[in-house]
């Protein structure tokens, strides 16, 4: 009678250990692939090699940054956390797209406003270019030309 509860206890203990180890295996973070690393890296630029995205930059400095991204991803950091870490360490200029704050908003506002203003100016220009087509007839009706030769020429033209 005493052995039975002890046996059950042992079985339960083993079962809990097995379940625990299975859960622990399930929680192990997946090792980040190169694609995972590059997905973050392509949004960053190393200040040493300007204008080359981090995912395709071949310098040792960039390779170290990619290693750091891999390390952070394997620790379970999110993309946003990693980007913020790089901003804190190296400044906003490492970001491919500047954050929409402070004077940076000009980057997002000025181009569309300039395009709209350009479209409006084109519209105005086309409108003005069309107007002179009407004016010669109106002008001829309103005031006869001073030159006798032109007056007679226009008379002949209107007859035809």
């Amino acid at each position, binding site marked *: 009678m005493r052995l039975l509860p002890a046996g059950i206890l042992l079985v339960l203990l083993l079962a809990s250990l097995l379940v625990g180890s299975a859960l622990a295996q399930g929680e192990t973070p997946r090792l980040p692939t190169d694609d995972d690393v590059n997905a973050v890296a392509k949004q960053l630029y*190393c*200040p*040493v090699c300007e204008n080359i995205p981090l995912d395709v930059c071949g*310098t*040792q*400095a960039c390779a*170290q*940054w990619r*290693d*750091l991204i891999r*390390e952070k991803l394997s620790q379970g950091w999110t993309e946003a956390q990693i980007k913020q870490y790089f*901003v*804190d*360490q*190296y*400044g906003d*200029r490492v970001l491919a797209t500047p954050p929409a704050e402070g*004077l940076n908003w*000009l980057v997002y506002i*000025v181009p569309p406003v300039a395009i709209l*203003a350009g479209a409006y100016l084109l519209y105005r220009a086309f409108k003005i270019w069309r107007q002179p087509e009407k004016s010669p007839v109106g002008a001829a009706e309103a005031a006869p030309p001073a030159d006798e030769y032109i007056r007679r020429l226009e008379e002949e033209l209107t007859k035809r």
Partner: protein
Amino acid sequence: MDVAESTENEVPQVALERSRPRWGRILVWVALLGLLTLLALGLRRTQQGPVTIGSKVPDFSLTTFDGGLIHLSDLEGKVVVLNFWASWCKPCEQEAADLEEAWRFYQPGGEVVFLGVDYVDTEPNALAYLEKFDITYPNGPDLRTRISQAFRISGVPETYIIDRTGVLRSVKISPFLSVAEIKAAIEPLLAE
């Protein structure tokens, strides 16, 4: 009457129509001037510096890898050797041992301070570099690249020698080739 009324109504309307584009133009010009002012300010800010020889070095703070905080202004009265480096920089390795040797030479006197600014580097690699070359003088990352931007460094290694009054006295834009060369840059300032 109708004609007179319509004429009276037309006059303010025409005036209104004329005033509209005028206000529009004023707004456009104000916006344009505002934008140009912002651009000029931004340009002025980017054109500031570099710190030239003979000019006072602006104050900066360096957070060291071991958590300390060093302000340049606190080092007045001492000669400061400010070295920019990175673990990925091969030429930096050439001078690393010489800088450390020079530091150990001057450290007991307490008149010279060496500061290492780690430029665009990752901390694990930077710490491995410091350990590899057994560097003991204070070193820290150039957070948000503020210090390197203030000096407008063109790369690494670069070393700036600042005198006791906080004035930049010499710049070395390449690795030091010997301890003697480092001493030659420091000694005249100690004699002053």
